[in-house]
């Protein structure tokens, strides 16, 4: 039985049930029941319209559960009856499900979990493994999230920006166990892009594809962080890059710029350079100006300082950096890098060591410690 087919059908079936008025949790139970039924029935008797079949069976299951009196009769009625193939249900329902799962009343971690469960069709166990928490904890997190959104009216238009933020969180959550959350986020964003015509959805999809294309080269075999300039560009996934660039260009042509498109443009310029030395830093710095205008995020301005340092020289980068709060994450690491480029190795080594102390991830800490050690070794020689 095709698990991928089930996974792709589940959200829209669930969306249709909820739209018809089923309570979210009950709808999910009904869909699960229908899937179990499908596993049993389909091998011998494959339906002409799998989605229509699932909708019909799940809806009956829902009615069964709601009207317990009638359930036995309905089950008897259903035997051997293949549902009439209906018209292809509108993608609109899946879209509503995205909005529901990213509802602002949910905390980020709950929205991520609910999205993976309801839209992604992952099992609770898979989500728990991917997020590195016990299955019981994740089950509770998901059922709380369902309760939180159970009072939300389903036909309210949602906020696309919230949905995109949740998908980006999923993408960044990393992976473990048997689910690659980055790949899962790309799959869900593709689905969203197919359902909704919005340049920022395209921008996010392009951004994910471009980042993911370089994912394999970002860490060494020992888990060591490989900085962009040292990455083996032969290992970049050129197909993904080409697709990302194409999607981005179509989005940019719409002339409704947003932060994901701007980020994707920067990622595309990196992906486009045949060698690190040929990176178009001037254009990247310009895109960072755009991005800073769109988001006013301090992290963006920090990254902009790096780009300015490459485009106009380390002194210009340090000047841009001086305008920023030095308590920003990675501020010290950026300062270390710019000082090294400026030839002040003693300051750079000291700052690398300081940055290592503040690093938010083990891979980054080790990377920065190595940078400090490399400079110290050179100076002592």
């Amino acid at each position, binding site marked *: 039985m095709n698990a991928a087919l089930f996974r792709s059908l589940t959200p829209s079936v669930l969306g249709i049930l909820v739209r018809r008025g089923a309570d979210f949790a009950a709808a999910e139970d009904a869909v699960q029941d229908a899937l179990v039924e499908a596993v049993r029935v389909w091998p011998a008797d494959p339906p002409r319209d799998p989605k229509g079949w699932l909708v019909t069976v799940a809806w009956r299951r829902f009615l069964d559960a709601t009207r317990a009196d009638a359930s036995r009769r309905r089950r008897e009625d259903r035997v051997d009856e293949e549902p009439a193939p209906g018209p292809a249900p509108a993608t609109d329902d899946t879209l509503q499900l995205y909005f529901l799962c990213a509802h602002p009343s949910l905390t980020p971690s709950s929205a991520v979990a609910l999205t993976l469960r309801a839209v992604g069709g992952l099992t609770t166990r898979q989500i728990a493994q991917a997020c590195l*928490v016990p299955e019981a904890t994740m089950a509770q997190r*998901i059922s709380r999230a369902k309760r939180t959104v159970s009072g939300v009216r389903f036909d309210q238009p949602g906020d696309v920006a919230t949905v995109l933020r949740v998908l980006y969180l999923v993408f960044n959550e990393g992976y473990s166990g048997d689910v690659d959350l980055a790949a899962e986020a790309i799959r869900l964003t593709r689905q969203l892009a197919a359902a909704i015509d919005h340049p920022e959805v395209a921008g996010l999809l392009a951004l994910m594809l471009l980042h993911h294309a370089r994912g394999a080269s970002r860490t060494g075999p020992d888990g060591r962080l490989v900085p962009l300039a040292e990455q083996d560009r032969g290992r970049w996934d050129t197909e993904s890059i080409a697709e990302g660039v194409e999607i981005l260009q179509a989005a940019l042509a719409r002339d409704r710029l947003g932060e994901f498109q701007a980020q994707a443009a920067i990622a595309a310029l990196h992906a486009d350079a045949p060698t690190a030395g040929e990176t178009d830093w001037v254009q990247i710095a310009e895109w960072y100006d755009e991005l800073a205008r769109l988001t006013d995020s301090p992290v963006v301005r920090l990254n902009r300082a790096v780009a300015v340092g490459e485009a106009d020289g380390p002194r210009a980068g340090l000047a841009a950096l001086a305008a920023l709060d030095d308590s920003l994450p990675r501020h010290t690491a950026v300062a270390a890098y710019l000082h090294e480029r400026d030839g002040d190795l003693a300051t750079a080594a000291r700052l690398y060591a300081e940055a290592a102390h503040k690093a938010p991830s083990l891979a980054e800490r080790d990377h920065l410690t190595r940078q400090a050690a490399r400079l110290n070794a050179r100076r002592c020689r």
Partner: protein
Amino acid sequence: MAKYLLLKHYRGAPAAVNDVPMDQWTPEEISAHMQYMHDFAARLEKTGEFVEGQALAPEGTWVRYDGEGRPPVTDGPFAETKDLIAGWMVIDVDSHERAVELAGELSAAPGAGGKPIHEWLEVRPFFGAAPTITE
């Protein structure tokens, strides 16, 4: 989304406000204390924020490689005191603020006289995965 380790009861920390050794509590007070922590963990499991928790025995030894065949176990490199951790809890929360809030609540477990013991907890973030950033 972000995991934190709550380390309970560091000996060496400033004294708790309600600083009465547990062996001088009444059995009911001890039960109430245990129940509070149990309820706390159960509630975090329900909110989807619990990862794990363990209590530690007070015995601890310091071990270090000291060359072939040499006994490296000592009672500790620190004079007079053993760095005692009573137990830990790992939580998975949305923000540092939430971690601090929960640690504060755990510190309010009832002690002698049924009053909060105000014990010190250390809140330490786990190293996360490197976030995807535009290089």
